Structure formats: C-alpha cells, structure tokens
C-alpha cells in the first residue's frame, strides 16, 4: 500500500479538543506527523490588553477547562509581582490547597480520558466518579465547578468555608484508597502495559531541547518541578517530592501522574497542618506601575507562565501566555514517528492534551 496522509481531526475521538493531526502512514506505521493547531484560538492576549487587570481573572480561568484554578492563579501571581503586593500567608496556603485539589481533578480528567483512548471505558467512568469528589470540594470553596474565578490579585475571593478541612481530608483519605484501585485496574492489566510500555519514548535531552515541561518531562527522567526549583506561594514550607520516572514512555508518564496525585494528597494534608490564621486578602491598587513582571507556576500540564507589562494605566499593556501544551503539542511529530496508527491515541493521550490553553 502506498503512503497516505490521514487527517485525524479537527473532529476526531482521539483529539481531546479541536486540533488536527496530519499523519502520513505507510500501512499502519507512521512515517511523518504534524499537529495543526489554532482551531480554538480566541485571541486571549489581545483581549487581555483591553480589559482592566481584575477583569482578566475570569478570562484566564477559561484558558483550560481542566485546570482553571491554575490559570487564574498564574495570572494573579503575575499581577501581584507587577503591582509588588505580598500575599498574606493564609491566602498562600489556601491557594496551595486549591491548586493541589485542582491538580488531582485535572489528572483524574486525564486518566479518565486515557481509558477510552486505549479502549477501556471503565477507566473513564471510575476516574470521573472520583473527580466528582474534588469538584464538590472546589464547589464548596468557590461556588462553581469548572471555572472558579477564586484567586484575586492580592489574595482570594473568600476564606475557607466552615468544615472544609474535614471534608477535604475525608475526600483525600478516600481517594488515596481509590488510587490503589486504579493501579490495580491499569497497572494490573497486561494489555495496558503492552500498549504503553516502550511506546512514545521521549528522551530526556530531546524533551529539554524541545521545551517540554511538566509530567511529560519528568516522565523522561528530568527532575524539574517549579514548585520545588522556583517555589511560589507556600510550596517552600511544604513537604513533597516531585514524581520522576526515567523510562520516558507512555507508561512512565502515566506513573508520574499517578505519583503526582499521591503527592498532591500529601501536600493537601501538610498544608492543612501548617495553615496559619490571618487575612486572606490584601487590597490591590487599580493602576499598575510602568514595569513588567511574570508569574511562573507548575500547571498540571507543565510550566505555565504569564508575562504582564504595565504602562501606568488600569489595563495591561501586553500579556504573554506561555502555555505548556502548545510546546508539547508542537513536538508531536517527534513523539509519533515510527510508531503505529494504533499508538496515536496512546501517545497523544499520554501527554494530556488541553486545547484551550494551547490555542489561547
């Protein structure tokens, strides 16, 4: 059979979102692949220039449907650096708790999507069931389930609700038990190991050269976690280990995310132990000084960065969003080359695609 080009997308069950994967196949083997991005481009950076600083928080939320908390947080962090505000310690701890809950919810969303990618719909339903716990927690904390608009420049919208600590610790304890079930379901399955081990290998040097970050990079053996290397909020005072695997294949990326969920549970517990009393918010000025600043955090998908330039007015002069998924997705040709068509969902699923943030 001659080589043929398949357009997997923009509407395709393999892509979790709108994007087109062009694959040239020789029989079932992929000889060349390229991602075509931009179907979801909404002009975020330009829109943000035309809004006041506070108005951009809900907008930043909508960058990624799976990790909204993380994006509004990184925007607020950048603005705080721009305004030169110090966030009160209690707010920092609450932010860590919310972010880690969000990280678990996001990884569960990924795990859920990875099941049907490999043909195991049961994994999807199980992961979504447990994600509900964390969405409920976030709902009681922020009032909404998907886009929270919880962080503010200088703190948070509200303090922890009463009983939140008890509920959160209960959910975490229950979830840690359920994580063992996932491991039994996925790791215990010979077919899952066959589909993921040795597939989509990303070498450490390649990953670093390409700028891939987050769990995808840590799956390749690079111990790089911004929470540890450039601590923000209260991460410095908290006790956790970045999850690292050395194999660089889909299975390693899966293991990294499972480990990260455990570490997140540990972080939530630790944060509740060390959380101080005090204010949860300080007032922020309306107009920014004439300078630039950035916020840099460890998103569930990698290194998220927002760069803000102030010009003395109440609107940013320029906003630049560094989305981890855009960079990872741009390298999918490197990841897919030489594997089979059947490996496409296994590999692209394992990098945790979120098109909202990739296309901005």
């Amino acid at each position: 059979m001659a080589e043929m080009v398949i357009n997997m997308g923009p509407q395709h069950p393999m892509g979790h979102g709108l994007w087109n994967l062009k694959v040239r196949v020789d029989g079932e083997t992929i000889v060349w692949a390229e991602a075509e991005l931009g179907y979801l481009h909404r002009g975020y950076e330009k829109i943000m220039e035309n809004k006041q600083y506070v108005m951009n928080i809900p907008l930043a939320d909508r960058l990624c449907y799976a990790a909204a908390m993380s994006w509004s947080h990184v925007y607020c962090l950048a603005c705080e650096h721009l305004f030169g505000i110090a966030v009160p310690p209690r707010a920092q701890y609450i932010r860590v708790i919310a972010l880690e809950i969000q990280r678990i919810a996001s990884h569960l969303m990924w795990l859920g999507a990875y099941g049907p990618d490999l043909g195991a719909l049961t994994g999807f339903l199980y992961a979504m069931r447990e994600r509900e716990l964390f969405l409920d927690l976030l709902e009681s904390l922020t009032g909404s389930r998907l886009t929270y608009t919880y962080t503010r420049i200088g703190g948070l919208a509200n303090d922890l609700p009463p009983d939140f600590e008890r509920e959160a610790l209960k959910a975490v304890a229950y979830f840690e038990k359920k994580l063992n079930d996932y491991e039994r379901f996925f790791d215990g399955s010979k077919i899952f190991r066959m589909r993921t081990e040795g597939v989509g290998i990303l070498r450490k040097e390649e990953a670093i050269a390409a700028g891939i970050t987050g769990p995808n990079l840590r799956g390749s053996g690079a111990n790089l976690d911004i929470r540890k290397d450039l601590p923000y909020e209260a991460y410095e005072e908290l006790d956790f280990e970045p999850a690292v695997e050395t194999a660089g294949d889909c299975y390693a990326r899966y293991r990294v995310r499972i480990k990260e969920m455990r570490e997140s549970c540990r972080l939530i517990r630790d944060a509740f132990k060390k959380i101080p009393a005090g204010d949860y918010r300080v007032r922020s000025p309306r107009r920014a000084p004439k300078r630039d600043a950035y916020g840099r955090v460890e998103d569930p998908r990698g290194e998220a960065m927002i760069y803000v330039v102030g010009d003395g007015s109440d609107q940013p002069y320029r906003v630049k969003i560094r989305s981890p998924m855009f960079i990872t997705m741009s390298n999918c040709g490197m990841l897919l080359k030489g594997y089979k068509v059947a490996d496409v969902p296994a590999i692209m699923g394992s990098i945790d695609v979120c098109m909202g943030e990739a296309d901005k």
Partner: protein
Amino acid sequence: MALFGIDTGWSSLYDFSEGVAKWIIGILSWIVGGLGDNLPWVFGDFLHWSDGIIRSDLHLALVAITVESVVLLLIATANLLTFIWIERKLLARMMDRRGPMYVGALGYLQQIADGLKLFLKEYIVPEKADRLGFDAAPVVLSAAAFFIIGVVPIAPGLGLTYQGSYASATVLLAFAAFAVPPFAVLIAGWSANNKYTLIGGMRAAALMMSYEIPMLLAVASVVVLAGGFDFVTIVEAQQASIWFAAPLFIGFVVFLICIVAELERIPFDLPEAEAELVEGWTTEYSGMRFGMIMAIDYLRGYIGCLLATLLFLGGWDGPAILPDWGWTLLKAYFLWVVFVWMRASLPRVRTDQILHIGWKRLLPLAMLNLLVAVVLVSLGWV
C-alpha cells in the same frame, strides 16, 4: 419435544413446522381449488394444475422449512435482544452506572426503541463510495449470520432440519459461514472510500488471517474427539463421556479468545477501534444499515457463545431440572457474561500485538491441544 415442561407432541421443530405448513397449504388449496371449480375452462384448468403443485410434497417441504426458518429467526432475535440488554446492563453496572432504565422493565425494550430511532434516520451513502460494495456488505454480513442460525441446533430437533434430520457436517457449514463476515468488512472498508474504513477493513482481514487458524484447530480437536462433523454427534459424544472443556481445556481457552477476536470485541476490536479510527470500517454507515451492523455484531456474539457451548460445554447436557434448550441457552448466556466482563476490564490490543498473540501464542497452543486430542483418541479414551 417438550416446551416449558409441557409435552407438545412434536418430535422436532420440523414436525411443528410441517403442521403449520399443512394448515397454510390447506387454506391456499381451498382458495385456489375452490376458484378452479367455479371458473370457466382455461382458468379452471390452470388453477387446478396450480392446486396440484401447492399440494405436492416438495411444496410442503419448502413451506415447512420456511416456517422453521421464521421460528428460528424469532428465537434468535429474542436472544439477540436479551444479549444486547445483558451487555448494556451488566457493562453499566460494572462501570458504576445504571444503563437503560426507562423503556420497558429494567430498560429491556430500549434496544427496540434504539432500533426504531435508527430506522427513521436517513441512510447516507458517501458520494464517491462504491455503491454496490457499500450496500452489499451489510447484507452479506447478515446473511452469513442468519445462515449459521439454521445449522446450529439449540436442542436436538430445535434447528433447521428436514424431517427431523440435520444437514451433514453442520460444524463445517457453521464455521465456513462464520468466516465470511471479515470479507464483507473488507469490502465495506474498501468501498466506503474513506481512509479510516480502509484501515479498519485491512485490520479485519489481518485479524481473520491470524485467528481463523487457531480457532479451526481447536474445533478440529473437538471433531477428532467426538468423531463426527455435526453438532448433534459432538454433543452426544460429550453426553456419553464428559464435556470437552475438561480434556481440551487449552483448546477451550484458545477457542474463546479466538471467538472474541472473531466477534471484534474488546480487547480485540481493532477493526472498529473508535479511539484512532473513529468507528473503523462502520464509520460511513448510517441509519438502519448501521443498526443492522450493530445488531449483527450481537447476533454473531450469540452464535459464538452457542458454538462454544455446543463444542466444549456439552450443549444441552445437564440435569433434567431445565429443558434441554434451557441448558444450551444458560451456558451461552454464561459465556456472554464472561465476554461482557472482559470488555469492562480490558483495554484494546494493538495491531501488531494481536498478530503476535495469534501466531506465536494461540497457534502453538492450538497445535498442542490437537495433539492432546489425538493422543486421547489413540489411547482409546473415548
């Protein structure tokens, strides 16, 4: 033949069908013959001549076999609906959801509702599709499945027979027809003029190549042990000794795995792998053609379970607390539950891995199993 413990007085399905056929022919003959008596010369003669044909033995046999086929099709359809319902309900419970709930008791009639919905949908043919192949594939697929229903007996006498006797070599006929659908899949995949369907069709062909042989070797071991090529002989041989799943355990496992692959179910549902190939070779089908393909998938599931039951689990062999057809169906349903369980707990295998399993694992195991059967027979065990 006893139905629900009541002796019906029929010795086989054919007896019943012959009775119905005689009744139908009686009515026809009354109309045609009566008309012939009352109509003038040429017309009267022609109708009397027709009446003679209607009353002939050949016509009686044809009508009886047609009636028999309709009855078997109704039985198969009832089981098919139950199979779909079991899959949906059980799979849902294993996934921690509820499955169909509202249409009929426990959602049993949901399949019919879905079928009606599909029936009302437009049938779209891609512009550049090969119309003949595209239209023919679902027909070939269903015809092959319906053919097997005729040759697989649920109980002695409860199959397509002529005067109570089966066609010879029903096992061969059944497996020959069982191997036809992959060709239909290949044709469908090619004719739809879509890259996904093409890859899906090619995968179906590869799957068939690697799983047909171990499956037939497993069947061959049963035939060697039973010493006959039809289902009744095989079941009777098992009634006389023990179920063949015990001495031919390897063969039983190989057969089950191959049946799952032949049925294109998870973990071997590569031809319709929805993650990468959208819906595989069925991508372009819509409306009732799609519904038919889905229904035939489950009908093949029913047939596959029946085949495994008859060949390895003793067919209708069992204590008399259930009627003989009840035992066959009970075992078939049990196997189906196992298949559903597999679907709920396993991801999908990759193309090269499936060939690897087929050629490097199942084929040697099937050979070993055949050796076991030959040794058992030469030692005079059966």
